């Protein structure tokens, strides 16, 4: 173990790592990036929050979840419903119908919208609903020992079904989704100061989420999770219920995706089925794979890199970017399954081997 990595494993190192990240996120980035770019960066940070969850479920728990878009979408739509209700209430008084519904010809508010006028209810729903759904689905799937590829396919089918379901709901904006928000808990969204505030919220949540992930990794539970990933039968033979262990990781990943979705809506200003279906869900995976699925910061860095590449390259070279995405999937996963995070270790082993050869040659 090199001196650098040893330093970051120590208590002092972890604190200084977080402090450094906080300085970079809160101090340096707002200076470097103008208002529009800072908003874009906040959007990337939302993806990074999803990535932390995937890193936990897939990298540490071995559950390849191809349906995180479902939870991302749940959080996003729940938040969007509240923002729309608040906007409508501000314009036309309590119980008013949001503007996109008026356009779609819906005269009275659907019953399930009404509770979302309350911010407390909305936030509780964002935290509880997706998590509860993930626990239920996780119990149904993992208790019956459906795993590996079966689980991956099921989670993907779920994302597909969810997106199709949303397209069919005119009271949720249908194909176009929900957009044009004016207020975020009473603050005008278009105000640059408030946008910077939103960025700070997202950055703070990301730091908290990374801390949570770190805590989970270092706990006894984290050890068990890795054990389940590497040899589920053995863990079961030791008397643990491996299904429960997996459900927890899956539910935490769902919760993180939901929070990210809820933050995504005010930051980006639109949520539609196109950003939560099968393809966006699998794209979440790409960043995690590139960064290093099992490492702490790999998913974050990978997600940021992919999102950045996507926005800068996809408009100028849409065709080339798709080829690059495909190639990245192939090259990274086939040749570098540990992602960028594994490069130092690989380099060290390579150097080691060369040294060994050199020793043999001289002997």
């Amino acid at each position, binding site marked *: 173990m090199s001196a650098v990595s040893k330093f970051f494993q120590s208590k002092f190192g972890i604190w200084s790592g977080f402090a450094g990240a906080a300085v970079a996120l809160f101090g340096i980035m707002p200076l470097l990036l103008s208002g529009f770019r800072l908003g874009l960066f906040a959007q990337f940070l939302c993806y990074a929050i999803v990535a932390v969850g995937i890193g936990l479920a897939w990298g540490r728990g071995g559950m390849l979840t191809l349906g995180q878009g479902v939870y991302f979408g749940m959080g996003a739509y729940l938040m969007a419903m509240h923002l729309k209700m608040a906007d409508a209430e501000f314009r036309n008084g309590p119980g008013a119908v949001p503007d996109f519904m008026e356009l779609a010809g819906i005269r009275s508010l659907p019953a399930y919208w009404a509770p979302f006028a309350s911010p407390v209810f909305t936030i509780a729903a964002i935290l509880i609903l997706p998590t509860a759904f993930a626990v239920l689905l996780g119990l149904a*799937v993992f208790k019956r*020992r*459906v795993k590996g590829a079966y689980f991956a396919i*099921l989670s*993907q*089918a779920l994302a597909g079904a969810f997106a*199709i379901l949303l*397209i069919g709901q005119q009271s949720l904006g249908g194909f176009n989704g929900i957009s044009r928000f004016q207020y975020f808990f009473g603050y005008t969204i278009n105000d640059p100061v408030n946008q910077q505030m939103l960025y700070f919220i997202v950055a703070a949540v990301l730091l908290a989420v990374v801390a949570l992930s770190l805590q989970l990794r270092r706990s006894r539970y984290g050890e068990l999770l890795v054990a389940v990933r590497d040899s589920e039968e053995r863990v079961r033979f030791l008397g643990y219920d491996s299904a429960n262990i997996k459900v927890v990781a899956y539910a935490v990943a769902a919760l993180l995706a939901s929070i990210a979705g809820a933050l995504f809506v005010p930051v980006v200003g639109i949520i539609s089925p196109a950003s939560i279906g099968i393809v966006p869900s699998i794209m979440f995976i790409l960043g995690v794979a590139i960064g290093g699925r099992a490492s702490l910061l790999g998913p974050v860095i990978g997600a940021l890199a992919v999102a950045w590449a996507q926005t800068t390259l996809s408009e100028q070279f849409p065709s080339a970017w798709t080829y690059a995405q495909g190639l990245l*999937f192939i090259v990274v996963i086939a040749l570098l399954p540990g992602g960028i995070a594994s490069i130092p270790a690989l380099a060290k082993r390579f150097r080691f081997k060369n040294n060994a050869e050199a020793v043999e040659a001289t002997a």
Partner: protein
Amino acid sequence: MDMLVGQLLTGLSTGSILLLAALGLSLTYGQMGVINMAHGEFIMAGCYTAYVTQQVIGDAGVSLLIALPIGFLVGGLMGFILEALLIRRLYHRPLDTLLVTFGVGLILQQVARDSFGAQAVNVSVPEFLRGGVDILGTTLPKTRLFIMALAIVAVTAVTLVLRFTPAGRRIRAVVGNRDLAETAGISTRKVDAATFFIGSGLAGIAGVALTLIGSTSPTTGQSYLVDAFLVVVAGGMGRIKGAVIAAVALGTLQAVFETNSTASLAKVGVFIVIVVFLQLRPQGLFTLRTRSLA
């Protein structure tokens, strides 16, 4: 009564479409445990094969009949190359295979977009398949009947090949017990390549047939892939019989849900049914009995 018959027939026809798309998968996924996300793109390749053949030949009837074997070859060769270059190296990492082949699928989609355009193209239906046939008071388009017939032929052919030819025997041996088969002198590498060729070729045939009922775009394959996977999951690994029953059952379910609610709710309904079904039979309808833990 009429409505029930109608729904059953629609179910059968949806089921046979699913079955055509899933048959190749149940060979490669079901028998080899390889999840090939590019399977949908092989279907798409079959669709474009039909399109190109028709552009070259012109006569819709002749080109359809020629496109079927060509589609098999195109799909099969793509699968063969994919297996030789990538999948062979990843046999022990099924989840990674899934992601790698998804990357391959992305690239193939973009290739199709760059060479045929993002706009959907249409293949004209031959004269003898236009119109419908009345069965028990329900009108079924002839194209759907053709697809049903094709699905039956394909299933029969695969079953016969697996059961009665030496190559099929080798495939079954490798599926049953890879190590023992190898000890008995069977080249598992060659068998894997052959299985992949056949499975992917079936995707090509499915693609050619699907041009009869819909237009072709670079993302055509993707729309069939998830449903096809669900068929294999519900049917159980390694069983053609399971795939047939699951395809028909899911097709009928979808038809029944769709007439009683909307198409979007139908997808959700089918998903819920599958999750509940897996509660009862986690390994699918039919399973190969093994003592392995996996």
